[in-house]
């Protein structure tokens, strides 16, 4: 296309136009042809055994040599005991300190940045789990999360710095980071068990793997963003490279790095419940236990403790960098505060006032159970009808149509044609390779099942997120009211609300859809709001001056101008929906999600890798295609105005 415009614009454009139009006839004809040739043929022989057998063999070998091979005795075993000692030390220390010292210390630490509101919020948030009788379990999870986050920073920052300086290294690790973020965490739970056994240690390390990418990415971004002049100035004053890095680049990049750490914290807390598959214990286990007993209220109470931890860690993270010299408290104040905290510890220990006093316990939330019962008895006629409509008019027919009626080459060729139309032959080739490999490892039908669910969740999330986001972008009050809800939706373990959804809808794809939508609309709403806010006031005023109605201004000016940011939100929605595939497998969603759970729970390494691979392939196709759509939709519109 670029060649066409540079050579002889008129005639070549005409040919290109003609060719493009011809494609609209040729491609469908070719697809019909493929369908006629391949209709009714079976899927090709799978290569999945050649793929999974070596992995299973390796797992078998690892299991037999756990006590003898040097890999275990020299590396994995010592590493396990190191992490385990670390975890125990943190946990014991936090429980040894009188409980009331912890909120006070948190308050003082954040208050030194003069962020009073945030200091009060964080210290109240840490008290909440104690009030509902979850103090010790929360400390257990806090220790695990703290350890995982510290390890992520210790590992992630150096990698990120290295990637900032060496392009080659950056290019090499980028796909690895992508994969780490899209492979559902449970997939690498199985090898974790092989190497590190069960319990909090493999759970910590699995959390590190899952939560590492944002620290690495934003460290690279931050270091690269440091102005060249600052670096040059530092070099001019004779600083060595190491000094420049330590004294100039890292401090200047700190806010960006901390943004990465905050994301890492959120991601780590996102797998608190899944980590119970490894025997992590803590709040995740409490959530599972209360839900098994149909105690929705206690589940919510426990889930809110996870939200509380997220809030505390988030604010602590911001406080690490949120200080400038002008507002820094004097040395005397700091000393008084530290002395005060030590005094309180000594006082608490000597008065033997250490454990959190017993207050309400999670029973305080039992009335929620009555609410669920009421909904079960009064709303179920509607929710069941909704469920059955979605299942029998969308899910089952579309799934069966794509699996039984459409021949597989037609699906792959359509994806290729779509890729070519959106972005060119590279995307077409990518789609063919990704989908072809799903076929070869024998994950075709499960992937189609999951794909049908993912599409529904994405479309519904976007339809919900855009109007809500637009409203939030236009009205400050709406945004202020939504903000805590969005935060909570992103951190509360979704099982807490989908188990009651099972009671209302039924086992199957619908509760999973609901969970995916509630989780995935968050970035959709946020980015839509951001996009609307970024629309220049002049454009809006100009349109109003020309007499446009509010409706016209909205659809003619605001939304088109925000399109690019909104499309970035769409892309994130897709990724988050994919992240929820596993959770829907826990409530009857079937497909790749259930297969992953099954592989983990039955320690099937090979199967686990295959499912994980299929999910990553699907993520790549959807991610690249949605980005291509974003480029087509977003760019010309913005350019036109």
């Amino acid at each position, binding site marked *: 296309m670029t060649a066409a415009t540079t050579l002889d614009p008129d005639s070549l454009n005409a040919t290109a136009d003609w060719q493009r139009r011809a494609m609209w006839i040729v491609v469908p004809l070719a697809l019909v042809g493929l369908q006629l040739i391949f209709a009714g043929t079976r899927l090709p022989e799978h290569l999945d055994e050649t793929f999974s057998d070596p992995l299973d063999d390796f797992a078998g070998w690892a299991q037999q040599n756990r006590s003898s091979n040097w890999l275990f005795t020299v590396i994995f075993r010592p590493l396990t005991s190191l992490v385990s000692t670390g975890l125990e030390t943190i946990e014991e220390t936090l429980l040894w300190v009188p409980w009331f010292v912890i909120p006070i210390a948190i308050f003082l630490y954040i208050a030194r940045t003069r962020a009073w509101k945030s200091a009060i919020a964080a210290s109240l948030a840490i008290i909440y789990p104690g009030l509902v009788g979850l103090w010790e379990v929360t400390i257990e999870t806090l220790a695990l999360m703290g350890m995982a986050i510290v390890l992520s920073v210790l590992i992630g920052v150096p990698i990120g710095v290295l990637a900032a300086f060496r392009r080659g290294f950056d290019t090499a690790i980028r796909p690895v980071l992508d994969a780490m973020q899209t492979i559902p965490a449970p997939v690498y739970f199985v090898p974790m068990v092989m190497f590190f056994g069960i319990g909090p240690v493999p759970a910590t390390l699995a959390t590190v793997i899952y939560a590492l990418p944002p620290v690495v990415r934003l460290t690279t971004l931050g270091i690269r963003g440091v102005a060249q002049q600052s670096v040059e100035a530092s070099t001019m004053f004779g600083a060595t490279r190491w000094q420049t890095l330590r004294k100039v680049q890292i401090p200047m990049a700190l806010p960006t790095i901390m943004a990465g750490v905050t994301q890492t914290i959120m991601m780590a807390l996102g797998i608190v419940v899944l980590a119970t598959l490894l025997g992590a*214990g803590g709040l995740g286990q409490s959530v599972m236990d209360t839900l*098994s007993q*149909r105690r929705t209220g*206690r589940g919510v109470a426990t889930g809110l403790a996870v939200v509380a931890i997220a809030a505390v860690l988030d604010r602590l993270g911001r406080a690490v960098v949120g200080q400038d010299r002008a507002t820094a408290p004097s040395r005397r104040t*700091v000393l008084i505060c530290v002395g005060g905290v030590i005094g309180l510890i000594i006082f608490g220990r000597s008065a033997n006032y250490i454990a959190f006093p017993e207050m309400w316990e999670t029973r305080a939330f039992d009335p929620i159970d009555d609410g669920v019962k009421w909904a*079960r008895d009064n709303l179920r006629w509607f929710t069941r009808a909704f469920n059955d409509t979605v299942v029998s008019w969308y899910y089952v027919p579309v799934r069966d149509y794509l699996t039984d009626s459409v021949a597989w080459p037609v699906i792959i060729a359509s994806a290729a044609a779509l890729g070519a139309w959106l972005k060119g032959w590279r995307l077409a080739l990518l789609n063919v390779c990704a989908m072809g490999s799903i076929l070869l490892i024998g994950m075709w039908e499960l992937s189609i099942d999951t794909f049908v669910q993912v599409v529904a969740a994405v479309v519904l999330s976007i339809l919900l997120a855009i109007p809500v986001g637009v409203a939030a972008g236009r009205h400050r009050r709406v945004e202020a009211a939504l903000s805590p809800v969005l935060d909570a939706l992103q951190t509360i373990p979704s*099982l807490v609300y989908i188990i009651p959804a*099972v009671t209302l809808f039924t086992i199957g794809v619908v509760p999973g859809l609901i969970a995916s939508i509630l989780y995935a609309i968050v970035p959709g709403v946020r980015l839509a709001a951001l996009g609307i806010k970024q629309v220049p006031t002049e454009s809006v005023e100009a349109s109003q001056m020309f007499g446009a109605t509010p409706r016209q201004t909205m659809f003619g000016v605001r939304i088109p101008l925000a399109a690019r940011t909104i499309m970035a939100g769409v892309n994130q929605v897709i990724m988050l929906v994919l992240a929820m595939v596993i959770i829907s497998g826990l409530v*009857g969603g079937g497909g790749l999600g259930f297969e992953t*759970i099954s592989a983990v729970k039955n320690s099937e390494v090979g199967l686990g890798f295959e499912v994980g691979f299929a999910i990553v392939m699907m993520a790549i196709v959807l991610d690249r295609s949605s980005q291509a759509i974003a480029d087509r939709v977003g760019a010309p519109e913005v350019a036109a105005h």
Partner: protein
Amino acid sequence: MKKLLLGLLVLTLFAVACGDDSDSDTDASADADGDKPTISLVVNSWTASALNVAVAQQLIESELGYPTNVINIDENEAMFIGLADGTADAVLEIWPSGITDSEQAFFDDGSVEHLGELGAVGRIGWFVPDYVIEQNPELATWEGYFSDEAAAIFATAETGDNGRFLGTDPSYSQFDEQIINNLGMPFEVIYSGSEPATVAELDARVSAGEPILMYWWTPTAAVSTYSLVQVALPPHTEECGASAASGDGGVDCEYPEDVIIKAVSGKLADKAPAVYDFLAAFTITNDDQLSMLPPVELDGEDVDEVAAQWIADNEGVWSAWIG
């Protein structure tokens, strides 16, 4: 800021240093029994498993003086790996019908030791609420499940003309797909994926008086809460049991009676002989479990409190386990 961080660090070190020799009379923490190793007991995802462990745990701490902790993990190979390497010391409720050949290998090489029967006898099977049988008496046995009418009773939007059989958490041993296919029943297995989801579905169906056919087991409190009745399947044969163990897909009979066993890490006898002897003698019967399950599953009481109550009521029983 650095000063503050330093201060916090010093504080932490101070706390850790003091933590080691803290006053042992005030809290019965691990420090009190510094010379005795911590005993880790496995809790699987069902309530009875948690209750057995809570009873054992409290007795090991109070009577034998060992500190304890629990590891929550599914009954799968990972659990056996944990037992083999000593991360976990004991599991008190293994259902033999679910032991796979690769798990059996751990018993064979001695890394995990079979410690005798627990005393409870479990039964996995197909269950329906009693009103289903009252309305359709033929559904009491497997012979009633071949007709399209039977399938229609249990059909859902997802299964269409087939009846739905509700499977459960994939870590539980399930042969229902094989039974249905090998016998040729017009049913489809839909897996709930987790026990909370199964229980939520059961609760919703029974509260609306709707039919449901599902994988479940005894002893559980749900059997009496929801008046579940077990469907008779073709009798268990040796050949059928062999199919289940080898995984050849040929299962077409009922689940065997599960005489529940205990297992310990091969290292426990050396690590804590007193605990080993105690666990070997440890016995919980179906009646014990059925007395403890309803307070937890129905009234939402704390597992530890219910176990403590059992201990208080049954001193005559457990005093015999202490060597």
